[in-house]
């Protein structure tokens, strides 16, 4: 396959994303739907760094997503009304928490690892829920919104302008995805794949497996926190539900739907998940049956996800 053929899908994706606010409205969507797909797609891709490429399942990523959400909300509301500072706080909070918790849990595997991530996730959820005075509890953290970004010469209004916010999200998405792609192409990334394929063999080769899993975990959670900050900015709202285990479950579903083994898989999965739910729930109050049926069919007949089907076609 020549260079264009290999890069083709990547170029196609970037073009679609670059011009999204224009073609999405034309097909009956709306710009903030596109932003939502991109933000959740980033979260799913971050999760997939750990799941699809390192082979480790986490069901508690919503905790770090939520740290991003509350980090940016609390900063803007109580500290400094600055979007960029808020995002920085959210990401740092998520990364530090992930680093510390990762040290504790990295020895576990399989369902045990998944359940312990749920345990931590639920504890964070209950803290957000009960610490009413700070987080607003079940009512959520409101009364703040995304602040215009002051670049010295000009100020970008991302509050009133949906398109401007979308491009901010796209910039963050691009940076995150570029870093993840570079990491996966590097020797570090190859090692992760080796660990995914056969952990025992990797250990025999002298690879410090636990340290690699810890690093993969921290990177994954860091980018999911970034996604969290963008999610809060999208909604102008921080909600404890963003920390619940079913939010984590949504990320896993998106990754599997789109294809865990493909780099763009989770983004496709997020697009399908968000758009399908958005569309079906507008048509019928029984959308849960349709979405549930869709999951069932995908698992039964398309376990490698949408991109898995396409990959197999092109390989054959």
């Amino acid at each position, binding site marked *: 396959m020549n260079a264009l053929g290999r890069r083709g899908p990547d170029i196609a994706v970037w073009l679609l994303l670059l011009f999204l606010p224009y073609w999405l*409205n034309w097909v*009956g*969507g*709306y*710009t*903030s*739907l596109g932003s*939502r797909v991109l933000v959740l797609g980033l979260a799913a891709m971050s999760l997939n760094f750990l799941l699809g490429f390192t082979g480790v399942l986490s069901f508690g990523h919503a905790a770090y997503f939520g740290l991003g959400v509350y980090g940016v909300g609390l900063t803007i509301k109580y500290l400094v009304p600055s979007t960029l500072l808020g995002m920085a706080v959210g990401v740092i909070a998520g990364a530090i928490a992930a680093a510390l918790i990762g040290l504790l849990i990295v020895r576990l595997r399989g369902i045990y690892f998944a359940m312990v991530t749920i345990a931590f996730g639920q504890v964070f959820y209950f803290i957000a*829920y*009960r610490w*009413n005075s700070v987080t*607003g*509890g*079940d*009512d*959520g953290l*409101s*009364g703040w*919104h995304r602040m215009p970004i002051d670049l010295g010469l000009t100020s970008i209004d991302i*509050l*009133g302008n*949906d398109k401007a916010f979308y491009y901010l999200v796209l910039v963050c998405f691009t940076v995150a995805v570029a870093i993840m792609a570079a990491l996966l192409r590097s020797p570090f990334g190859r090692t992760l794949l080796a660990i995914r394929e056969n952990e025992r063999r990797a250990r025999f080769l002298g690879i410090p497996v636990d340290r690699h899993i810890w690093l993969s975990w921290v990177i994954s959670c860091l980018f999911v926190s970034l996604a969290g900050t963008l*999610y809060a900015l*999208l*909604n*102008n*709202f921080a*909600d404890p*539900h*963003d920390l*619940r285990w079913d939010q984590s479950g949504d990320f896993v579903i998106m990754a599997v739907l789109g294809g865990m083994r493909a780099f763009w898989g989770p983004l496709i999965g997020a697009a399908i998940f968000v758009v399908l*739910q*958005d569309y079906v*729930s*507008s*048509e*019928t*109050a*029984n*959308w*849960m049956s*349709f979405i549930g049926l869709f999951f069932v*069919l995908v698992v039964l*007949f*398309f376990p490698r996800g949408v991109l898995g089907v396409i990959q197999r076609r092109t390989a054959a």
Partner: protein
Amino acid sequence: MTNDILSGRLDRRSLIKAAAAAGVAQFAAPFVITARAADEIKFGLNDPLTGTYAELGKNEQIGCQLAIEQINAQGGILGRQAQLLVEDSTSADTGIAVQKARKLIERDKVDFLLGNVNSAMAIALGQVSNELKRLHIVTGGHTDSVTGTDCHWNVFRVCNTTRMETNSVSKTLFNKYGKKWYFITPDYAFGHTLQQGFEASLKQFGGTEVGASLTPLGATDFSSYLIQAQAANPEVIIFLLAGQDMVNALKQAVQFGLDKRFHIAGAQQELEVLEGLPPDARIGTWVFEWYWVQPDVPHVKGFVADIRKVNGGKVPSARHWFGYVAAWTCALVANDQKTLDPVKLAKALENFKLPPEIALMPYDTFYRAGDHQLMPTLYVGNAVEKGAAEEDLFKVDELVKGVDAALPVAETGCHLSWPA
């Protein structure tokens, strides 16, 4: 094809064909909500249709739909027909609620936004409607801040604040049932503000709070909290829960025989909860925000009959009334002012009095100027196992004017800032 499934030989191609066929059939079936047309006045209802608040959202929707029907029968709004677009906000995912609100306003270009049952969503939606400058009537989210610290010039609310509910019933509780109170409080803003309201009343009357239990939202078992309540030896146990929590707590309280030793009471109660309880658990002193049995109030019987026709024969609850009033409010003020401009409509809604055939209440019902809170009548009474009619589960003892029970505007924390 069934044979294929059973023998596991179903392949992807035939599956896709079958799915396409099934999909088309389903969407043509009675599952579908509404079609969309242009050049109509659009109402956007953003309410939970799935999850734990599904029943409440559904009832508000039915009330809205009846209102829209009546509005159109009477000539529509400014000569144009009205149309209701409904979006499921889900019961717990505020992100989806916000997304749907943006969809309704940005893509579907609704003129009026209605909703939400969930307090957190009501607040979040208020921010969206304020940002995008649409008139927004909150139907059933009770947290005080919607017409308090989180108030906006374009947001109005139909259902009561928690302070209105507690103030309407506290005197009765104190005089008739006891001066020592124990609170079972759900641990979120709604519960906290209800408790604060009652505590203020206790202070005013000189009663005692013997204790309180904070219960997690969605708790299934209340026995440990009821054990604590019993140990504190109150005269009245006050249940500040809502929805499923209230059903579970009352069911268990009656199973424990607590209703025979203490008086059970609370502030907000809903017909949906009483209907979900076994008859022996329909007890206690409560406040209803609207009730279907009002023999002395004109037009109520007609409303009840109209709702029965579209509600499977069941009587309307306060939720139906919330949706009905919210939709009609928009139509009335728009026709009155002959404009759809949100700022003009919002200004006109201040001190706007609802006509009796919409208000369906004995006293004047109007939107207060300073905080945009509707001032309705509150119905204080007792739950009964069965009344005169089969669905009559509440006996109204006292009517309280909302405006008497509410906090003065200055104390609500609401500061409205109007666009230039």
